[in-house]
């Protein structure tokens, strides 16, 4: 039977390593969700992606049961991993912190296509490229 939705909550957590600490604990606790049940399920589902930050969109129903879907990691995290830099530039217009190849931009765009509001792959690539530049990453051929 269809259940009435109480709220939708979006969080991000380390794959396989979510804990009941803030922000997850308070975010879910205030809706009456059993926090440990979410943590266990999130960690089990995301264990293969350990090392990445994974966004989750949790739907909370009136009876306090919940379902959730996981999304692809944030573009900035994927770019950091691909380019090997630990942190983006604070002044991206002046200081670059690394490079990322166009092929890698395309690979990230393909991975994130399902979660991006892009018409086609080319549009998705432009979005990822924009994120790269805003972090101080130079896009190479």
């Amino acid at each position: 039977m269809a259940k009435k939705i109480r709220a939708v909550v979006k969080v991000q957590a380390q794959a396989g390593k979510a804990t009941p600490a803030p922000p997850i604990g308070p975010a879910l606790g205030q809706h009456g969700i059993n926090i440990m049940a979410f943590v266990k399920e999130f960690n089990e589902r995301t264990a293969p992606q350990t090392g990445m930050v994974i966004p989750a969109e949790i739907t909370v129903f009136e009876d306090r049961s919940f379902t959730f879907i996981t999304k692809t990691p944030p573009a900035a995290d994927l770019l950091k991993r691909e380019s090997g830099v630990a942190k983006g530039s604070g002044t991206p217009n002046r200081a670059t912190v690394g490079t990322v190849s166009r092929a890698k931009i395309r690979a990230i765009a393909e991975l994130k296509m399902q979660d991006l509001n892009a018409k086609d792959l080319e549009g998705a690539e432009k979005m990822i490229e924009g994120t790269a530049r805003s972090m101080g990453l130079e896009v190479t051929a």
Partner: protein
Amino acid sequence: MPDRWLEVSIRATAEAAEALSALFERAGQGGVVIEPELRPGPDVDEVLPTPGAFAMLRTYLPEGQDLVPRRREIENSVGLLRAFDLAPMGDLTFRWIGEEDWANAWKQHYSVQRIGRRWVIKPRWQAFVPGAGDLVLDLDPGMAFGTGLHPTTQLVLECLETLGPAGGGAGRLAGQDVLDLGTGSGILSLAAARLGAGSVLALDVDEVAVAAATENAAQNGLADVVSVRRATLGEPINGVVTVPGLDLVAAFDGAFANIVARVIAERAPALERALRPGAWLIASGIIAEREAEAAVPLAAQGFTTERRLQQGDWVTFLCRKEPAGPLSGAAPTVQEA
């Protein structure tokens, strides 16, 4: 974990939310929470964004020495965004919260539940009059896993009802020594004790779980049967070792491992050693897509799967260690280093 956290909230449109969430990601602890404002849709299970697509954004700052600079960074950056005339956003609000504020909120919605044919999970703070044949587990899980609400726990309890002689009822585990690896709230240890187990050793590496399971055993009058220890089985994990001074080789007639696929796989050799010939093992907490990750190592240790149960995405195995007999020991087993 700090005792108190400063919750930072702001209401903003989708446009401003992008920039604000990047700020909260950077300055807050553990990231940002975004909760879109919703209105009912045409169907009961459908919701739509409110006009303007507003959302509430939250992040948390732990009490401590860098709280003031982190709070200032957030306030300054929000001021800058406002100066850029970024799409509408509300004012920043701050409030202190403690673990008790969120950890217990779900309890209001936790009520007496029936699992399988005879199990009744009764929250400690609720009254319940048991019927004939009911097996009641009085529980306050606190922040430990094992409320009985999760399919993994429910599957184990259902599985337990089929163990032992048919019609064995409450005495179906009479006199057995049982191991509960990763006990959480202690729910499965209590269940084994209710079914007549002579002794239950409940292990967990998490202090919160050990405290909850100890209290639950006492509250159910089962403290003389259920022994709760902060320990593991096999290789140490996060500095937690096996139970000192206890010989855990061929020591149990049955075991629960309601954890996750990876840990079951990793602990399969130690479980095999801890169990007596012919003993049962209920392995649970296995998500269907990773079933093989647990099933293959269990089979490699000589466990045969007698039952496979599934609820939603979750799978539980009832396994059996090879019985003693003229051929026992003939099959090669992998021993833990």
